[in-house]
């Protein structure tokens, strides 16, 4: 029996570090930085398959996960990523009641900063909260989702998942369906996919498509079949049940009838189409169960890749040596 062949191809990267001290959003990143994160994530992914899932890279570094919105999935993913890199991690979940009564975000952050964390991972309901923190804190700030603005690590893990299967991003047709107006995942994905040369289609009812969306370099349509035709990837975004109150659409049933991803709707896409969803899913609203659990779905891969991508981000932002030395 011949042993498996080593497959990883050596490539010299164009850039070896990120330009900013923080990860606030994809909008300000260059394609070479995105590639660096994805390449590093590939190396990080392998660590999860070892018997000892730990490397000492961030040993002695303190990372605080400051979550102003409840989130099991993202927070767990960050925590595991941090622990795998041997960092000391602390998660703080702030209930919305204490926000109304208590300290401002700025004061909370400054108090934390006095204890010298190396990095703060922030999830917050206000767009721009991470920018505010970045201006007042010296710690590196990682955006885990701010209001309706961006969720950069989600877009990065989505891109990683696509690249893993399709070996590239450029030239793929990616259709994104759902509540585009309120979605930070959408914005981050649009920035990333267009920067990396994919053809992006956004689809939803006109009430949920942001103003001037074509200025983002995407095609917009309210016809699902147009978006799905020959798509390589279909991303479904969560519909928040509260949107009915804002008169964005009349009912979930109607939404599902017009925009829900069913097996029948899928047929227009490429035969090896990937179905993606950032989670948590509303089965029977944006996605039919048979699609969510079907052969095209990579939703669980996305979750697995989230840890690797977040490890890459943490590693790249944690600071390093002046230049490469071999010893």
């Amino acid at each position, binding site marked *: 029996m011949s042993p498996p062949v080593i497959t990883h191809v050596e490539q010299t990267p164009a850039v070896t570090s990120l330009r900013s001290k923080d990860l606030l959003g994809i*909008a300000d990143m260059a394609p070479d930085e995105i590639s660096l994160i994805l390449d590093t994530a590939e190396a990080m992914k392998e660590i999860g398959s070892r018997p000892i899932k730990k490397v000492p890279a961030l040993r002695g570094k303190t990372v605080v996960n400051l979550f102003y919105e409840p989130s099991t999935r993202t927070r767990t993913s960050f925590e595991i990523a941090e622990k795998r890199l041997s960092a000391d991690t602390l998660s703080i979940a702030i209930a919305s009641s204490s926000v109304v009564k208590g300290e*401002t*975000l*700025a004061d909370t952050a400054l108090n934390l900063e006095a204890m010298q964390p190396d990095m703060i991972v922030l999830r*917050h309901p*206000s*767009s*721009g*909260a991470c*920018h*505010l923190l970045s*201006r007042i804190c010296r710690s590196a700030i990682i955006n885990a989702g*701010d*209001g*309706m*603005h*961006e969720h950069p690590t989600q877009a990065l893990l989505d891109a990683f998942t696509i690249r893993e299967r399709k070996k590239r991003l450029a030239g793929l047709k990616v259709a994104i369906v759902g509540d585009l107006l309120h979605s*930070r995942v959408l*914005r981050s994905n649009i920035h990333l996919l267009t920067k990396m040369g994919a053809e992006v289609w956004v689809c939803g009812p006109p009430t949920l498509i*942001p*103003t*001037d*969306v074509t*200025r*983002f370099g995407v095609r917009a349509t309210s016809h699902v079949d147009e978006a799905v035709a020959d798509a390589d990837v279909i991303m479904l975004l969560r519909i928040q049940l509260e949107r009915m109150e*804002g008169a964005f659409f009349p009912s979930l049933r109607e939404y599902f009838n017009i925009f829900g991803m069913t097996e029948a709707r899928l047929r227009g896409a490429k035969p090896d189409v990937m179905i993606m969803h950032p989670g948590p899913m509303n089965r029977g609203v944006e996605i039919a169960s048979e699609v969510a659990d079907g052969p095209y779905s990579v939703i669980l891969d996305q979750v697995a890749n989230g840890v690797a991508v977040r490890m890459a981000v943490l590693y790249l932002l944690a600071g390093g040596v002046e230049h490469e030395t071999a010893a």
Partner: protein
Amino acid sequence: MKRLLKGGRVVDPANGIDGVHDVLLDDDRIAGIGRDLPVDGAAVVEIPQGFVVCPGFIDMHVHLREPGQEHKETVASGAAAAVAGGFTAVACMPNTTPVNDDANVTAYILARAAEAGLARVYPIGAVSRGSKGELLADIAELKQAGCVAITDDGRPVATALLLRRAMEYAGMFGIPVIEHCEDPSLKGEGVAHEGYHAAVLGLRGMPGACEALGVERGILLSELTGSHFHVAHMSARASLRAVRKGREAGVRVTCEVTPHHFTLTDESLASPIPYDTNVKMNPPLREAADRDAMLAGIADGSVDAIASDHAPHHYDEKKVEFDRAPFGIVGLETAVSLSLDRLVHAGIIRLPRLVELLSVNPARILGVAGGSLSVGAPADLTILAPDLHVRIDASRLRSRSKNTPFDGWQLRGGVAATIVGGRPVFINPDAGLSV
């Protein structure tokens, strides 16, 4: 006491004057304008060449925050900021705590202004009690106490019916109803102009139509009642379009634009400082087409006045997430330099038109003295140094609050001195004018 302002370029469009003249002040009145007036015992002030002498500027939209919000500003600090900005008078908005909906609050404001002895202060009273939009405030009492107009500024008058009644009632006294034009349901939870930049940043938007709807409502009611309707802080091109049409139809509608709305656009949301809360105000900074429409309206006479909407907020209140920050920026001390630099030097308008926008028209709209240098008029003058190099420094503003997006801006043109009732209440040490 007599004072002779000698040799400046006098711009007094109300009297058709634009040229080098002397101006003689006698105590608190204008005594005469002419060439080579005899000194005759007057204190002589040599006006340097190029400086401009005009009737005192009046900022008809200012928030002085007293009573109740003195951490942001007081009547005294606001009056000091006003004269430093070249304004001899301001009209102050009623959204204080308590709201200026009765004579006691009006009297309090006037007393503080008299104590300060700087800019004149003309209070504007509330349309409705507590500005709650339910019952009319005691408008006659407010007028008698010294209010020059009524508004529920901060928000639109709650219903068309109430606005109609307010206009009919105010019409008795000949005072205008000033309206913050907005449709609350379209505004929703908006914090920025609905457009590309808000979309990129994930900020909820309010479209220009939201303001224009309020403007159209007011114009129709003005037509119905025959009363004077004034559009506060106009920002959208659709609003200007409505004003023009209304005027063509003979409706008594006037409007004002702030310096930030003719200078900045919603690009400022993203740059230089993304999510800068000093760029958050209502109405918001809109897209370039709206800003350019405001400039066109200023040039062609459709816009009647420039008013700052000076809205001081304490540093702590603005150092929060964009969503949570209060709307508004200070403007008294940046308005004139922005106007000189972006309107006059940019070739959009000339000085006489600027004086109309900052003095003649505000006086006429509010029905107060001023706006001209006629003999017998109050000796309220603004002396401009149109080529003075000005660098805006937020830390040195006289206002208690420093919430301005113009910190660090270099502008051409500034105030040399401000004279109220014959007394020089502000002299700019950098302008080189000795009084």
